[in-house]
């Protein structure tokens, strides 16, 4: 089998990058989306001002491996649990959830208890996010 065929036969990691809530700053989300794309992943970007319901419906339809939530509004303790609950209600508990944005340390711990696999704060290297995403899905 040639390398091309092997690539065609394996499924790229699919990631949904969502911006729940009201803040309108999506630079970070876009930088992460690009980095993951450049690492060979298929990245679905939802755009701004999504409700948790919209994000989970999109994740379901796109059959993603990972949901990344970018939140700079401070409402992460409301939005993230809502997304996780909805994923579980759809029987999608196996989807990896990560959060990026401005999240205080103690809140990050709280989110991880709820099932968030990683919280990436300002200054995180995109390489680290790529590495983590690959490892969490268990595919290159």
């Amino acid at each position, binding site marked *: 089998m040639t390398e091309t065929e092997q690539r065609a036969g*394996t*499924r790229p990691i699919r990631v949904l990058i969502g911006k729940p809530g009201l803040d309108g700053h999506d630079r970070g989300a876009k930088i992460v989306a690009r980095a*993951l794309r450049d690492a060979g992943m298929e990245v*679905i970007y939802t*755009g701004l001002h999504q409700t948790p319901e919209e994000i989970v419906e999109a994740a379901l339809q796109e*059959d993603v491996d990972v949901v990344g939530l970018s939140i700079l509004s401070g409402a992460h303790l409301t939005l993230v649990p809502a997304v996780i609950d909805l994923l579980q209600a759809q029987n999608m508990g196996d989807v990896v959830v990560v959060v990026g944005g401005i999240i205080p340390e103690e809140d990050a711990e709280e989110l991880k208890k709820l099932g968030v696999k990683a919280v990436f704060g300002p200054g995180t290297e995109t390489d680290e996010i790529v590495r983590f995403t690959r490892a969490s899905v268990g595919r290159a």
Partner: protein
Amino acid sequence: MSLGQEILRGDRRALARALTLVESDPHAADDIIAEVYPHTGHGIVVGVTGAPGVGKSTLVDRLAGQFLARGRKVGILAVDPSSPFTGGALLGDRVRMEGRGSDVFMRSLATRGHLGGLARATPRAIQLLQAFGKDLILLETVGAGQSEVDIMGFADTTIVVVVPGLGDDVQAFKAGILEIGDIFVVNKSDRPGADQTMRELRQMLHLGPQRTWLPPVLSAQAQQEIGVAEIADAILRHSEVRLTDPEQRQRRMQEAERLVRDALADQLVRGVVSRSQADGRWNEVLAEVAERRLDPAGAARALHLEQD
């Protein structure tokens, strides 16, 4: 219960997973397709194509809303290019979509190296959506503009979207793109030059070969929902004309031929390749071709003749 049965029962998660299968490995999904195939082929598949930035995604979203309001069951397939270097893709068509919840099933497809403006999985993805019960499928191609004529083979009605003032107008209407359109939309029609673009398009269409269906040229401002109802009307009109067209049966036969030929080519290639790999001939022959000791067609002939 099989994935196919779950799709026929309307399970969204099953549909999503089956779409992943047809995207990743066409053959892993052979069983599913075989199971649902009798329940496909109904409804209307609308292709939307045009250069980047002309407003395809927005138009697709507004048409989805328009057809939902008319009681249709709407599915969307949006194709974006994969990077030829990394295989990655940024699938951003959802950004233009208004939240329509679970009423519309939308799937973003990456081209994964396939040329022609569509993903290789497109025909199967359409079949899965139809089996799920969707009777109006909007299929958006990558924004290319001159060569993505693949869409014609998959769509019942092809919409070509243009905008005023895209360089030399005639440039936008080269052969191919002009011939595949069943409906032309001049979007962003509040921009200067819209009337002229429409006039030129109509002139060129009148110059073309006489067909039973003369493609209408419609103006729209999709973002503001202006002209969208008229486009939906034209789609339904075209669909009616198509269904009463005596050539309809012939077209179905052509479509069937294309699908069977593709499947046949696929199966034969896979058979020959896997057997040649098993006995080690594959790499030998590749090396001979790479070193210019054997030509590619000769190599192919040698490989499949050896196995007969």
